[in-house]
């Protein structure tokens, strides 16, 4: 990182920097984990009883909020106050949910769970889980947390990613990056086995992630320290829980059981799960369901083979998704297969996945922890503790992004599996004579018809001068950042009229509701925290000032005298503001001063391309035609 690095000119006060703390968080549907990577040492934080996982369950009462194992104890008693699997509802509106009869939703358009402590949105529930994880890490490290990398399923759409980000914000965590879970797993394995092969040619890696509630498959390529996601696929409604359900249904029909209420059903599912787990190490197990249903047989047998037959359909669905993903990726050979998620402990899974990809799956790391471990490693890099050998993750868009056009059809602007960040523009024109407004409806999905895709945002470009139909040139630009979050802008090119929207979470929260929730989470901020915010704001301002000064020393010739004078003036104004005690003012001054440096930064990056590519000689250009 030779470019724009913060040099410290002798004259000014040095900025003292401690090793920053970045955490990796696997915010799972059933279980969550938090891990930390520090100079080669990887820790998954445990609770006081040594358990690494935190069940993603929150129990709400008017008096208090309980998270994890403690909440699980209330599972059967106060159902409505006990929220599990909130991740399934992230970024969803009431209208998205069809079958959820066992869930008590609060009144209103916003999707929220009705608890005796009031309505709780999935974002708030996730925020409570994140707070518990944060506290766990803080107790162990006794240091402030500078930032976190949170993993999300590769299939998560924009609204779900936005919701995840917002939950972290409510929990007072700075999100360095949302990372796809399979990518995180590949990074975790990159620590040891694959890193040694960095100098060899490309390696193609398949990540098979079968969790409790979701299935993801990704094809990645590793080439000289760059991890590239070639394609992702999967099924967001397929997981280990479905194997339990299938097995429970099998028992019901096999033994003619009558499952009278939801409590008996839950106990039957728990029993099915235990049987599934014991079949991992045993070819055959005794089935005794009399605890659950008195009339059930006391000592039936179930073989692994029978279990596999009951679930053959589920297994095949995952394999179909794998085949499709390989096609999308356009690869022939898979060099490594990584197994993620507790459900991959089932022997049948290892067997069929190994056979499909003609290779032995990697499973030396705990499949429940591998995602959090990879996230922790990436968090350590992103928080600023980096070295030259760091891997770089290039992610892709999981779903296509487009806009509605004439007749309710979707015009795709960013196809799925496009490497991000990406900026794409498409020109449109007016459909009617004298049309002065353009309704831009942003959607996500693979289908041709708008009603089959997910609506992300709508905004209007107004003030188009009246022209005949087809004469206006309307440029719609999509920008997807490295987290997969989308911004859309529209411009009428002949007049320069513009409209712009940052795609907001489409899960029904109004801006003022969000503001209220944020205020609530800040209200607890202590004096200490405010003091720290001031120090941080000053440090950021100081770093910008020093960075620009150092850059001017090296590359000052890229600016004209007047440009340079202007930039120096902006910096001296920032220096003056930084002396004040108002953190907000300093931050906004730093922000606008930063914008003033963009042209300079762009020119410096352009100059450094030559340095980066200098080692590649044009003479070595072998003529090789790929077509």
């Amino acid at each position, binding site marked *: *990182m030779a*470019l*724009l690095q913060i040099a410290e000119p002798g004259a000014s006060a040095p900025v003292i920097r401690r090793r920053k703390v970045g955490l990796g968080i696997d915010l799972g549907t059933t279980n969550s984990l938090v891990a930390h990577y520090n100079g080669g040492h990887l820790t998954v934080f445990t609770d006081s009883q040594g358990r690494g996982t935190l069940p993603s369950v929150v129990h709400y009462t008017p008096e208090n909020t309980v998270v994890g194992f403690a909440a699980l104890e209330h599972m059967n008693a106060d159902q409505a106050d006990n929220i599990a699997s909130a991740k399934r509802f992230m970024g969803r509106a009431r209208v998205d949910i069809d079958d959820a009869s066992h869930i008590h939703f609060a009144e209103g358009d916003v999707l929220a769970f009705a608890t005796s402590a009031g309505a709780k949105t999935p974002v708030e529930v996730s925020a409570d889980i994140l707070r518990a994880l944060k506290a766990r890490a803080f107790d162990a490290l006794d240091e402030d947390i500078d930032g976190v990398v949170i993993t999300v399923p590769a299939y998560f759409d924009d609204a779900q990613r936005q919701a995840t980000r917002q939950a972290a914000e409510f929990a007072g965590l700075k999100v360095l*990056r949302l990372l796809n879970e399979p990518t995180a797993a590949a990074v975790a394995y990159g620590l040891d086995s694959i890193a040694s092969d960095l100098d060899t040619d490309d390696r193609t890696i398949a990540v098979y992630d079968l969790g409790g509630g979701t299935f993801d498959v990704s094809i990645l390529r590793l*080439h*000289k*320290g*760059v991890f590239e996601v070639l394609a992702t696929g999967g099924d967001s409604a397929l997981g280990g829980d479905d194997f339990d359900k299938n097995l429970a249904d099998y028992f019901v029909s096999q033994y003619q059981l009558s499952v009278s209420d939801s409590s008996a059903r839950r106990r039957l599912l728990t029993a099915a799960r235990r049987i599934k787990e014991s079949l991992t190490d045993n070819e055959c197990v005794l089935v005794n369901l009399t605890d659950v249903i008195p009339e059930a047989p006391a000592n039936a047998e179930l073989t692994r083979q029978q279990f596999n037959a009951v679930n053959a359909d589920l297994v095949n669905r995952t394999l179909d998704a794998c085949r499709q993903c390989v096609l999308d990726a356009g690869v022939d050979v898979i060099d490594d297969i990584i197994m993620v998620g507790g459900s991959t402990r089932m022997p049948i899974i290892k067997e069929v996945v190994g056979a499909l990809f003609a290779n032995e799956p990697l499973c030396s790391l705990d499949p429940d922890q591998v995602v959090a471990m990879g996230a922790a490693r990436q968090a350590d*890099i*992103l*928080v*600023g503790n980096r070295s030259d050998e760091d891997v*770089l993750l*290039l992610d892709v868009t999981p779903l296509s992004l487009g806009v*509605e*056009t*004439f007749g309710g059809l979707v015009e795709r*602007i960013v196809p799925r599996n496009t*490497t*991000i*960040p*990406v*900026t794409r*523009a*498409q*020109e*449109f*024109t*007016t*459909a009617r004579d004298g049309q002065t407004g*353009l*309704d*831009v409806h942003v959607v996500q999905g693979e289908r041709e018809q708008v009603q089959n895709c997910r609506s992300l945002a709508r905004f209007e470009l107004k003030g188009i001068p009246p022209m005949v139909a087809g004469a206006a*040139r*309307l440029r719609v*630009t999509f*920008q997807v*950042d*490295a987290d997969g979050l989308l911004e859309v802008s529209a411009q009428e090119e002949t007049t320069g009229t513009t409209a712009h929207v940052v795609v907001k979470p489409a899960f029904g929260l109004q801006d003022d509701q969000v503001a209220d929730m944020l205020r609530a989470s800040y209200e607890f901020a202590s004096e200490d925290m405010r003091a720290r915010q001031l120090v941080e704001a000053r440090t*950021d301002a100081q*770093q*910008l000032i020093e*960075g620009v000064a150092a850059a001017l020393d090296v590359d000052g010739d890229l600016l004209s005298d007047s440009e340079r004078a202007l930039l120096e003036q902006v910096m001296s104004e920032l220096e003056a503001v930084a002396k004040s005690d108002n953190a907000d003012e300093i931050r906004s001054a730093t*922000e606008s001063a*930063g*914008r*003033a*440096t*963009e042209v300079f*930064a*762009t020119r410096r990056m352009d100059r*450094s391309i030559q340095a*980066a*590519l200098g080692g*590649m000689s*044009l003479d070595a*250009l*072998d*003529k*090789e035609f790929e077509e």
Partner: protein
Amino acid sequence: MTVSEGMQGGSARNYFDLFRIPTCFDLDVKDLGNRYRTLQQQFHPDRFSDGSDADRRVAAQMSADINAGFQILSDPTSRAGFLLQCEGFDLQALEKQAPSGEFLMQQMELREQLQSIPPGQSDAHNQLSAESRQLFDSQVGIFRDAYAQGEFDRAGTAWVHLLYLKKLREEVERRENSQ
């Protein structure tokens, strides 16, 4: 709203310059891939995660340009289109020019052939696949020659033909995979 067809791209950058390779049709795709990864290693916004907001914004745009450049240059059809753009052609206008009746007739026949292949006839499929590939390659040859000679109108026609043939090949492949 109505789509006006055309090339997509985020910025007006010359991608050949970006990758520091000569502006010509023939390129080593493997070398391009190496250059792409080297540049991403340096300019991806993750490399600026502790930098200023301004650095991150500039890096994000840079990284998006690198992605767009790699995508456009690594595919022969879009690379040909980009070369024409560099010569001042308006691709949207060019794309609207209908190819010759003879070419269109041939395309229609090939598509009819494709539709009429019953499922499981992999021989017939392979033959059509080989034929469409051959047609594509010959248009690539015409483009290469015309572009090198500076006959840009002829190159433009070849590019339009490439667009049709690319779609045909995708269609053939799609049907092959769905069988």
